[in-house]
């Protein structure tokens, strides 16, 4: 769907454009934004220079400051990517997917390896982007993340989508079928304890 790999079977349409046609592929690239898992950026460049580079690659005019402010990184604009913390790296990575004002962005396990504060901070950012009407395609291994962020969840097993629905519907259906948790759920989780003790503030340094 990201046009980076050959598809094995079936048909994919992005905004009515087929990924099979070379001509359409280029049009698709213009309306999507991709955040690759663990992707690096051009070495030795500052964040604002990286944004200018991508602005050139997408042929758009943007103000790097404004975009960095959106992800709370405008104070870091003269830093290099590798000098950022894990959460900042992911925020910057998402920031670069927004440069071409895409209709759809793809996020590949954006919160993997982040501490609870940074993770919640990233959720807020994703919800902010979502509220502006951008479609977000997110892959994750964390079901709590999917439950909070997603309107529709597809579960893939062995390369096949085995179910796709809203999180509420999926849970309701399971409960309807007589499922019960072996242990009564407490009103708070250990993560809530952690956040409660260490505070919501995100720790960058």
């Amino acid at each position, binding site marked *: 769907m990201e046009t980076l790999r050959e598809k094995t079977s079936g048909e994919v349409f992005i905004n009515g454009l087929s990924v099979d046609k070379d001509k359409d592929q280029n049009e698709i*690239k*213009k309306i999507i934004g991709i955040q690759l898992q663990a*992707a690096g950026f*051009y*070495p030795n*460049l500052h964040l604002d*220079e990286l944004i200018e*580079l991508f602005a050139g690659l997408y*042929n758009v005019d943007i103000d790097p400051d404004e975009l960095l402010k959106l992800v709370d990184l405008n104070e870091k604009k003269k830093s290099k990517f590798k000098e950022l913390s894990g959460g900042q790296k992911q925020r910057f990575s998402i920031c670069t997917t927004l440069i071409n004002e895409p209709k759809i962005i793809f996020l590949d396990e954006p919160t993997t390896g982040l501490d609870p504060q940074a993770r919640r901070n990233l959720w807020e950012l994703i919800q902010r982007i979502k509220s502006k009407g951008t479609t977000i395609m997110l892959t994750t291994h964390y079901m709590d993340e999917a439950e909070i962020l997603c309107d529709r969840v597809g579960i893939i097993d062995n390369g096949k989508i085995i179910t796709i629905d809203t999180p509420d519907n999926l849970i309701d259906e399971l409960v309807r079928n007589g499922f019960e948790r072996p242990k009564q759920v407490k009103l708070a989780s250990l993560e809530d304890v952690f956040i409660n003790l260490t505070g919501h503030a995100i720790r960058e340094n």
Partner: protein
Amino acid sequence: MDKNYSQIRAMLSLTKASLTALMRNPSAVVFNLVFPLIFIIVFGFIGGSGFKIDVVIEKNSDTLNPVYQELIKSSTIRVNKDLDDVKAMSELEKGRIDAIIKIEKDPAGQSVIFLKTTKASPERGSILKMIVNEIVDKQNLAMSDLKIPKTELKEEVVEGRKFKTIDFILPGQLGFSLLSAGVFGTAFIFIGLRQTLVIKRFFSTPVKKVYIILGECLSRLIFSIFTSLIIIVIGYFFFGFTLVNGFVTFFNMMIMSAIALIVFLGFGFVVSGIAKNESAVPSIANLITLPQFLLAGTFFPISNFPEWLQPVSRALPLTYLNEALRKISFEGASLFDVRYDILIMAAWGIVVYALAVKVFKWE
């Protein structure tokens, strides 16, 4: 969304980014600028002393003899007065000095010059023998009654441009700079970009592959032209490097540098295609660059090598760059005059790029 997407604009922004990154990369600056300048300085000073033959004159020699006076005056001979006779003999055997001379006057009034040379430095020995012979002949002639010599040597030295060490060293260092920029610079950066998925991220933008390559090449071309310019300017103003026709010569050298860099970039692409990861780059890249640095007349003239080795030198592309640069800078050759050198480099370029297309990996 803008319908007329400009690949050129995308390429230029990549060039700008790549150039900014290059300027911040200490190893690029050191390899392309600092190393060549250090070599120029070092070789520039070594070359300055000229050719000297070290001679010890034995202590009990007849220093009033005219031959002695002539030897002292000679610009080619450096007379060492500090060594005693025993020490001098052992130094001679090691080749640290080239000859020992003893001047004796026997009771009959005849002068005898004893010349002891060493197998450790035979060439200098035979040159010294010629010099001493000439002095002796002159003395004999002066003493004889023969006022008009039977045979006479008329010597004429043709006026020529003085070929300084810098005129040999600087073009070689320019070649060194261009080759290392082309091979090391490209190989490291492309493997790095491949491994950190930077290239994959570029692919998700509408820019075409070929423009990614062109953008990178363009930035290296600009960077190398800039470093070449600095090397030539420093050589010209501080070391008296000869630019025969002034600006035209300079301009031709820059064109030549650009052609060479394009060929050498091809080697860089091949290396980045062959090497599995970054740590494999230096060994493969050195395999390509080191023999050329040594054999292509970068530091020593090719004619210094044994005959069986010279065809190898004659096969290397850097040889032709070095030769062309020297012809341009010292003989004032035009680009048309060095067309064969350019042609051979172009042939290398075709071979290398054909190979690069085969082995180059995007992911």
